[in-house]
């Protein structure tokens, strides 16, 4: 019951269309990922809230089909 990278990315994009997303399959088993998500929507929010927004985007899959997703969020730097 694993998830592939495209599916994770698609779900996050649906909720956070501007997000810059980098996902890595840490063990190559489709079950342990790390994700970096940067979005303007995170601006001014505490980290817990930022992560909750990503988890909500995954619609309950986190902790179920998606066993492990090491998450790092940030606000994109304005250049």
């Amino acid at each position, binding site marked *: 019951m694993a998830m592939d990278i495209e599916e994770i990315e698609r779900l996050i994009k649906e909720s956070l269309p501007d997000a810059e997303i980098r996902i890595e399959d840490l063990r190559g088993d489709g079950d342990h990922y790390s994700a970096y998500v940067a979005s303007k929507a995170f601006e001014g929010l505490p980290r817990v809230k930022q*992560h909750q927004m990503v988890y909500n985007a995954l619609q309950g899959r*986190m902790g179920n089909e998606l066993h492990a997703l090491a998450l790092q969020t940030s606000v994109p730097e304005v250049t």
Partner: protein
Amino acid sequence: MSDNPVFDRIQTEIDESSVTLFMKGTPMFPQCGFSSSVVQALTMMGVKFKGVDVLADMEIRDGIKQFSDWPTIPQLYVKGEFVGGCDIIREMFETGELKKVFDENDIEYSEVQQ
């Protein structure tokens, strides 16, 4: 107080200790790498904390996820506030933000050797 009796039990656990870690296993014998890494950070900082083993209590294991609106274990509470899960705590430990949280809440820790 709440419509879910488990929430009251969780609230009591959080109120009883300034620093509470909901984890898999015990601080001495963590049963999961993610729980273990948070225990390690807290231990390195010399912070006194209470571990609540969710593997020993299915009700709390499911309830804490709804209580915090957070899908995974471990979960760290400081003075009743949810601070974060494994990724956040690790990041805050590395950046020194975790120290700040303990300072703001008058929680004792020893100097970190990194």
